C-alpha cells in the first residue's frame, strides 16, 4: 500500500505526533514551576491515542508505507502495552522527588517521542525501519537517562549508555549491511525467501550477520552478554526513567525480535499458530537458549550481591528478560503467547516495584537496603505492596508473576522434551531469585522496630501503587480476559511471496 493510502491507517501515530508537538509548544508558554502540567497533557493525549488504537480496525492486517511497517493485532497489543507503561510512568514522574528542580517539559515530550519510536519498533518489518526505530528510541533514552544535569551519576549513566548504545547499534547495523548484501533486500519476507533458497555455503555468513544483529537486540532487551550498560544506567538514571526503560523498550525490542526470528529466520509458522521450523540451517534456537540461560542466571546471581535496591531491580530486570527469552527458541504460537502474557504481568509488578523505590526515595532520599529498614511497619501500604511485588517477581502464586512463568514453562514443556532442561534451569533460577527478593521483605519487616505512627505516601503515589498492586494480585487469580485479549492479538502479518 503506498504512502498516501497508508496515512489513513496511521492516524494513531499521527495523533501521537500531534500530542508531542502540543506538549512541546505548551511547554513554551508556561513557566518551569508548573511545567508538570505538560505531563498531564501527555497523559491525556496518550489516552486519546490509546482509544484511537483500540477502535482502529486492526483485524484488517495490512502493510503500510510500501512494506515498511505493518498494522496487525500483534503490534496493536504492544502499542497499548507501551502506552499503558508510558502513562503510568508519566503520572509517577509528576511526583518523583528527583525531578523536583528540573523543568519537566522536555522530559514528557521525550517520553512521547520514545513512545512513537516504540510504535514503529513493534510494527517494523523492514531492516531500515528496524534500525531507524531502534535509533529513535535509543537517542531519546540517552537524553532521558542523563536528564538530571546536575547529577554526576546521571551524567555518567548517560555517557555509558550513549557509548554502549551507539556501539552496539553500530555493530547491529554492520550485521544488517551483511544481511542486505546476502539477500539484496531489506524486507523481512524477501530476506526470508532468499535465506530459505540459499544453500548451506552461506550459512556461516548468515550466522555472523545474525550474531551481529543479535548484539543490537540483546543490547535493547539487555540480554547477557550485551547487558553491561544496564546496572549502571538503571542506577544512575532518574528512577522513573529506569522504570520506563525496564519495561517499554524491552517490550518493543522483544516484539521486534519475535518478528525478526519468526519471519526472517523461521517460516513465520508461529503467526498462524503452528510450530515453525527454522528455514535456515543456522542453530539460532540453541543460540537463543544459551543466551536466555546466561541472561537469567547472571541476572539472578549477581542481583544477590547488590546493596542498592534500584541496582538490584536492574539485575532482576535482566533476569526477567532471560525468562522471556526462554520461550523464544520454541518459537511456537504458545511461546509467543507466553511472552506476551509475561510482558503484561511483568509490566505491573516491575513498574510497581520501581514506584515503591521512588516512594521510598522521596521519603528517605536513599535507595540502599538500609533505607528500607522497618518500612513495613512505618508505611503499611508500601510494605504490603512491595512484598506483593517481590513475591510476584519471584513467581509465587497467587500473583501475576507466577502466571507469567507458568505460561512460559508451559510453552516450553509443550515444545517437547528438548526444552525441559530450560524449564528446570528457569525454575532453579526463580528459587535463587527468591533469596534477594525476600531480602527486601526481610529488611522491611524483620529489621528495624515497628513504629506507632503510620505514614502514608502522597495520594497519587499510593494510588499508583494500588493501580499496580491490585492487578498484580488479581491477575494471579483470574486472568482470563487478558489471556483472551492476547489470544486475539496473536495474529501477525505474514506475507507470502
Amino acid at each position, binding site marked *: 500500500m503506498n504512502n498516501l493510502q497508508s496515512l489513513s491507517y496511521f492516524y494513531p501515530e499521527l495523533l501521537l505526533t500531534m500530542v508531542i508537538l502540543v506538549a512541546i509548544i505548551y511547554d513554551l508558554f508556561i513557566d518551569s514551576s508548573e511545567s508538570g502540567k505538560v505531563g498531564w497533557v501527555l497523559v491525556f493525549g496518550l489516552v486519546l491515542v490509546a482509544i484511537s488504537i483500540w477502535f482502529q480496525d486492526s483485524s484488517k492486517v495490512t502493510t503500510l508505507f510500501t512494506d515498511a511497517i505493518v498494522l496487525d493485532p500483534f503490534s496493536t497489543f504492544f502499542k497499548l502495552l507501551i502506552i499503558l507503561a508510558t502513562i503510568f510512568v508519566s503520572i509517577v514522574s509528576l511526583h518523583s522527588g528527583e525531578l523536583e528542580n528540573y523543568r519537566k517539559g522536555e522530559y514528557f515530550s521525550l517520553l512521547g517521542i520514545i513512545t512513537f519510536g516504540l510504535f514503529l519498533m513493534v510494527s517494523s518489518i523492514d531492516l531500515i525501519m528496524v534500525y531507524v526505530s531502534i535509533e529513535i528510541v535509543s537517542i531519546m533514552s540517552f537524553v532521558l537517562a542523563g536528564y538530571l*544535569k546536575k547529577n*554526576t*551519576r546521571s551524567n555518567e549513566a548517560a555517557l555509558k549508555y550513549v557509548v554502549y548504545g551507539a556501539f552496539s547499534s553500530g555493530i547491529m547495523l554492520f550485521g544488517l549491511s551483511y544481511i542486505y*548484501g546476502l539477500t539484496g533486500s531489506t524486507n523481512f519476507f524477501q530476506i526470508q525467501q532468499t535465506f530459505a533458497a540459499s544453500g548451506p555455503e552461506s550459512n556461516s555468513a548468515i550466522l555472523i550477520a545474525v550474531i551481529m544483529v543479535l548484539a543490537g537486540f540483546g543490547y535493547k532487551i539487555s540480554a547477557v552478554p550485551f547487558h553491561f550498560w544496564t546496572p549502571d544506567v538503571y542506577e544512575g538514571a532518574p528512577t522513573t526513567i529506569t522504570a520506563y526503560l525496564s519495561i517499554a523498550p524491552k517490550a518493543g525490542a522483544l516484539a521486534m525480535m519475535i518478528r525478526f526470528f519468526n519471519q526472517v529466520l523461521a517460516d513465520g509458522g508461529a503467526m498462524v499458530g503452528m510450530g515453525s521450523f527454522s528455514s535456515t540451517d543456522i542453530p539460532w534456537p540453541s543460540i537463543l537458549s544459551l543466551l536466555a540461560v546466561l541472561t537469567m542466571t547472571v541476572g539472578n546471581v549477581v542481583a544477590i550481591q547488590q546493596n542498592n535496591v534500584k541496582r538490584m531491580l536492574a539485575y532482576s530486570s535482566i533476569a526477567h528478560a532471560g525468562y522471556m527469552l526462554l520461550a523464544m527458541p520454541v518459537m511456537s504460537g504458545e511461546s509467543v503467547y507466553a511472552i506476551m502474557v509475561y510482558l503484561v504481568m511483568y509490566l505491573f509488578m516491575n513498574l510497581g516495584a520501581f514506584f515503591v523505590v521512588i516512594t521510598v526515595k522521596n521519603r528517605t532520599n536513599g535507595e540502599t537496603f538500609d533505607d528500607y529498614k522497618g518500612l513495613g511497619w512505618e508505611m503499611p501500604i508500601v510494605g504490603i505492596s512491595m512484598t506483593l511485588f517481590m513475591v510476584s517477581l519471584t513467581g509465587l502464586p497467587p500473583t501475576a508473576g507466577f502466571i507469567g512463568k507458568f505460561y512460559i514453562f508451559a510453552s516450553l514443556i509443550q515444545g517437547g522434551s528438548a526444552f525441559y532442561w530450560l524449564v528446570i534451569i528457569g525454575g532453579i533460577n526463580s528459587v535463587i531469585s527468591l533469596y534477594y527478593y525476600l531480602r527486601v521483605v526481610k529488611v522491611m519487616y524483620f529489621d528495624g522496630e515497628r513504629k506507632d505512627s503510620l505514614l502514608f505516601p502522597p495520594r497519587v503515589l499510593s494510588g499508583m501503587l494500588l493501580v499496580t498492586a491490585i492487578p498484580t494480585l488479581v491477575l494471579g487469580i483470574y486472568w482470563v480476559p487478558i489471556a483472551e485479549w492476547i489470544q486475539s492479538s496473536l495474529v501477525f502479518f505474514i506475507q507470502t511471496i
Partner: protein
Amino acid sequence: MDQLNNYLFIAAILFSLGVFGVMTRRNGIAVLMGVELILNAANLNFIAFSRFGGMNLDGHIFGLIVIVLAAAEAAVALAIVINIYNNLNTINVDEASMMKE
C-alpha cells in the same frame, strides 16, 4: 566482483578501526569518532552492495538514513560529553566511574 571485495575489505578495516577506537580511546570525543567509523563502515557496505551487487536502491536509502541518524546521535552524545565536562571538568570516559559493583 573484485571492486566489491575491495570495498568490503575497506569497510571491514574501517569497522575494526572503529571498534578499536571505541575500546582504546580515553577521550570521549575520540570514542564517539570510533562509533562514527563503525557506522560509516556499515554505510560503505550498503552502498557497495547496492552499487556492485546488482541490487535495488534500498542500500543507498539506508546509507542516507544512517548518515542522518548518526548525526543526531553524535549531537546528543556531544551534548552529554559537554555536560560531563561541565560537571567533572574532564572528558575522559574513565574518570566517570562512580557506579560499580
